[in-house]
């Protein structure tokens, strides 16, 4: 099967780069699945989960990988999918208890302005995505 080069990059690291059969990103206009030879596209991303069916070095084994992400961007080209985000977490990187505590604290904190409400909404979505990736959502 044809593959596309999938990479997920944060300012602190190249988190993943490899071949994938399918990449699904949480586009601001809804989930967006990219197969190889997808038309060129640039989209903003909302907090959520990036899923990729990555192909191992033998070209056969397919490994499903999931990353919780904050807001960012994705660039889809016929031969590649690039996800640019501030931060990304895979399951082992999420501490379920502390993430839950953070989420509770966030929900109790009052917001004083529209900007604060918006920032809190985004943080909440990021935390929820982290919990979902870790399988610890309520």
């Amino acid at each position, binding site marked *: 099967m044809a593959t596309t080069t999938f990479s997920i990059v944060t*300012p602190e690291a190249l988190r993943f780069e490899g071949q994938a059969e399918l990449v699904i990103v949480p586009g601001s206009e809804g989930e967006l699945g990219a197969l190889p030879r997808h038309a*060129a596209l640039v*989209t903003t991303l909302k907090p959520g989960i990036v899923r990729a069916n990555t192909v191992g070095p033998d070209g056969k084994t397919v490994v499903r990988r999931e990353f919780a992400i904050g807001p960012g*961007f994705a660039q889809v080209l016929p031969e590649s999918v690039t996800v640019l985000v501030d931060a990304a977490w895979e399951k082992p990187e999420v501490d379920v208890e502390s993430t839950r505590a953070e989420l509770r604290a966030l929900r109790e904190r009052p917001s004083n302005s529209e900007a604060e409400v918006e920032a809190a909404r985004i943080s909440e979505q990021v935390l929820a995505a982290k919990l979902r990736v870790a399988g610890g959502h309520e």
Partner: protein
Amino acid sequence: MPSVRDLRDRIKSLKNTQQITKAMKQVAAARIRRAEAAMRAARPYAQRMRAMLDDLVEKGGKIDHPWLQPARAGRPLGIVLMTADKGLAGAYNANTVREAERFARGRQGESIVWYAVGQKAAQAVRRAHGELGANWVLVSKERPMVEQARLIAERLAGDFAGGQVGEIAIVRPRFVSMLTQRPESARLIPVEREAGGERAATLSAVEFEPDGVTVLSALLPKYLEFTIFAAMQETLAGFFAAQLLAMTNATDNAGKLIDELTVAMNSARQAAITKEILEIAGGAEALRAAGH
């Protein structure tokens, strides 16, 4: 000629200094590895973000944004001067400050708003110009560097949007190698188009979601934020490299001086002993001559 005791005191104080410079050298050597690794880890992001931005600017067609317009004449020029927070790194900070002054002189006649990142930059601007648009430390105890960069970018974007400045430039040190760091100036806003968009030529059309303007409006502030973040990382890595070199030289120089002073002290001591023996011998001779 200094006395043996004077020389011994100077050697002692030099040894203390040498111990401090040696400790600082070791600290710099330990930190540079992490700082340099962090700097390298940010490169893939830089390349990809630039590629995305070029695609947008080239293929977005008519999408427009104030940051892509030519600089607004008649408004002050904002200069971000970035240095380390601390000194004891040779001419590292001073060179960057000098480059900023040179850059400012090249824009004579324009009023300038100074922004300082790093305590040394803030001190230099205050000394030379008195006032400062805003300043931040390079390494904050309260927040990670990414967030510090975001705060700086937000302030700069706000000042540009509010018309306090019509153009923003940055002067900061470039990490060329462990031995060489060179100050460099570049424009931050308006964002300059990079020459030679080879990848753009291979694509006929690019779709944008939700639309070009929205994507660009989100991407440009991110680009600014990241450019500042990368510059901060580079400034920190360069600082440790410069400090490592400065402290290595200081330790070596102290060692050389200690050697020289030790030789001087030994010959002074020897001279004193010789003199004493001569006196004793002279005395004995005098007594013998007196007929005892």
